[in-house]
């Protein structure tokens, strides 16, 4: 007659990863292994100035002395860092294409399959895009329009050549290379990523977007993104990620640094759909990412919105340092763990300036054997008079074999601080499902409806075009969640 929770579990396992194809493209990939020579090779390949090579080598030497963090609530075999290749690029990009017409048609085909047409005329109006394939940036669209507004949006390797002073001034100032193990590794070997600079008083005329794709086997992706919003400027930025379906695990250790000067606003949205591994937990991306925003100026604002449905393991805490007085930090997150996925994610809000405010809304959804932890830190320093924080973390469980955990940390060293924390854990009840079904709605549609309702607070923070994408992605991620 109707489904039992057992069927529910079985159906849950049948999720397919739509972005799971790989592209047969000739690549130049350095042999696995990491040494100073490899770093020199990467730096030379990218034609970098000496200061950057020195910085990389310093990071590498520091990294050698660091230990991999083990405190997160995730379990995986030790990673052999000498088995990873640290640089890969499609051969056809050996000479970077001058225009899209010169881009290898196979690459364009890949992005088309992913639903990212690069041709500007096919683009959603108002979204400029940078695309990173394995280690290199493939194309940046809408460059001219942005140039007119004075906005710089280009691959970071290009920014290092063309705007060395800006890069040098800000690189590593939010996430120094000694910050943590993965940030150290990234600083030593980062290959590409995006750079954004929005000049004083400019409201960036369109959404900026970067699309990351890991294609090569046994390569890691170590991109580095740096966004600087000068005084009184505004920018909204979105990143999306996918990878082919492979049996082995691949490492993704990115660093994202945001700098907001006086009165500037940065809105950073992520839709992360790295390959999550199969239902037995084989393969999938290890997503060990350091993202941090520095509200350096007065009344500046940084807002993180993330929809995390992919990756075998996620270790990620997009954070805000609220240095400027009256600055605002926000973190809105939806994270899904299904099958054998594990996620330890959350945020850090560091209140330094006076009257700083932060909001945290975290929605975790666990299904199958997924394990998910919210880990959040709210720190109020003695200097942060009248700091305020509101934290809400809700977990939704589907089925009986998954887990949700919450690790909130608070460190308050100013008596005027005002902190609120709310947390709930709920199951998609048979009550809710039956209620919807008794109105004629299929079980599958009911689950997706209930889950979307649960995530609504976060989705409404996403740029509109992407909110729709995120909802679809969520439905796909939980496809067959119940039957």
């Amino acid at each position, binding site marked *: *007659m109707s489904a039992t929770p057992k069927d529910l579990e079985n159906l849950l396992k049948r999720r397919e990863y739509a972005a799971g194809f790989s592209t047969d493209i000739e690549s130049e990939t350095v042999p696995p292994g990491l040494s100073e020579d490899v770093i020199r090779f990467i730096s030379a390949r990218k034609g970098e100035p000496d200061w950057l090579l020195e910085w990389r080598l310093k990071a590498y030497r520091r990294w050698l002395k660091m230990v991999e963090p083990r405190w997160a609530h995730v379990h995986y075999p030790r990673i052999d860092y000498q088995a990873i290749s640290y640089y890969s690029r499609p051969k056809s990009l050996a000479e970077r294409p001058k225009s899209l017409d010169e881009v290898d048609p196979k690459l364009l085909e890949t992005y088309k399959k992913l639903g990212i047409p690069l041709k500007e005329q096919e683009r959603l109006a108002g979204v400029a895009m940078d695309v990173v394939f394995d280690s290199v940036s493939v194309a940046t669209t809408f460059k001219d329009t942005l140039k007119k507004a004075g906005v710089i949006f280009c691959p970071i390797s290009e920014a290092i050549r063309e705007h060395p002073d800006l890069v040098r001034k800000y690189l590593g100032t939010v996430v120094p290379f000694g910050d943590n193990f993965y940030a150290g590794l990234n600083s030593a070997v980062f290959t590409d990523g995006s750079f954004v600079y929005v000049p004083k008083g400019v409201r960036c005329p369109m959404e900026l977007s970067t699309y990351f794709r890991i294609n090569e086997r046994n390569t890691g992706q170590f991109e580095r993104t740096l966004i600087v919003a000068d005084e009184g400027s505004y920018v909204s930025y979105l990143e999306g990620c996918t990878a082919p379906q492979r049996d082995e695990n691949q490492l993704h250790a990115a660093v994202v640094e945001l700098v907001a000067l006086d009165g500037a606003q940065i809105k950073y949205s992520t839709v992360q759909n790295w390959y999550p591994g199969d239902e037995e937990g084989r393969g999938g991306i290890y997503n060990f990412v350091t993202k941090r925003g520095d509200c350096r100026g007065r009344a500046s604002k940084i807002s993180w919105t993330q929809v995390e449905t992919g990756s075998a393991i996620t270790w990620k805490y997009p954070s805000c340092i609220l240095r400027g007085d009256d600055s605002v930090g926000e973190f809105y997150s939806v994270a899904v763990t299904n099958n054998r996925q594990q996620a330890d994610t959350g945020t850090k809000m560091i209140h330094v300036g006076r009257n700083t405010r932060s909001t945290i809304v975290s929605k975790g959804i666990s299904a199958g054997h997924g394990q998910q932890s919210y880990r959040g830190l709210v720190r109020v320093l003695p200097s942060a008079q009248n700091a305020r924080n509101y934290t809400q973390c809700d977990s939704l469980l589907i089925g009986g074999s998954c887990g949700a955990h919450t690790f909130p940390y608070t460190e308050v060293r100013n008596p005027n601080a005002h902190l609120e924390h709310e947390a709930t854990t709920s199951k998609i009840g048979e009550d809710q499902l039956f209620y919807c079904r008794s109105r004629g709605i299929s079980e599958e549609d009911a689950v997706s409806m209930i889950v979307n309702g649960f995530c609504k607070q976060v989705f409404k923070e996403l740029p509109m075009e992407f909110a729709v994408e995120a909802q679809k992605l969520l439905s796909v991620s939980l496809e067959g969640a119940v039957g």
Partner: protein
Amino acid sequence: MLEITNLHAQLAPASLNEQSSRGPAPGGEGKKILQGITLAVKPGEVHAVMGPNGSGKSTLAHLLAGREGYTVTEGQVRYDGKDLLALSPEERACDGVFLGFQYPVEIPGVSNLYLLRTALNAKRKRQGLPEIDAMDFLAWVKERVKQMKMDIAMLHRGVNEGFSGGEKKRNEILQMLVLEPRLMILDETDSGLDIDALKIVSEGINLMRSPQRAILLVTHYQRLLDYVKPDFVHVLARGRIVKSGGPELALELEQKGYGWLEAA
């Protein structure tokens, strides 16, 4: 329209993962709840099913709507000549069966409007009709919101989210008016209503009375039947119908209670 023949049902083995608060209680596996119900409901009729706590009234209502957790051991249920028990809850709903819940469920973040539109379109799909035009739908719903004397703004609130008990019951009837079912099973829709709300809810139910439709009212009290006049009254005790009669039976019950029937 609805023919229940010698229906026997018991609690299904408790599921390991889910245990619902309103569904069958744990530990009662194998407990016999319905023990030979026979009942025929024709189009145009209103039947009231009354009886003491634990007599199986709610089980009957839920079972007809397709709730999991019960095993039918004997007997059958035909709806328009089809085997009702072979259909999923959503198929039953799309074919015109509606259950008004005693405890309507909250679905945070999903607006009432969205639930209604999704439900109505699911039904239209099964009937081979295209999705309803958004403007037509809105007009259709608003009219019914007014009939239930509810605030239009409720359409944009989460389903039953933060609703009072009375609002939840009115919302059930609103959903019924929008979806226009043919067989309406109302499980203690009158419980927890003040007299004004009871009137509004009753008026809503009466709007749906027609020669093509039938209503099964599950209730403890005569009160609702003052407003929604039943054609037949049945008394359920220990999983059986122990007495059937006309509307006067309800009045008799009001005076004498259930004791004299339970002993019978």
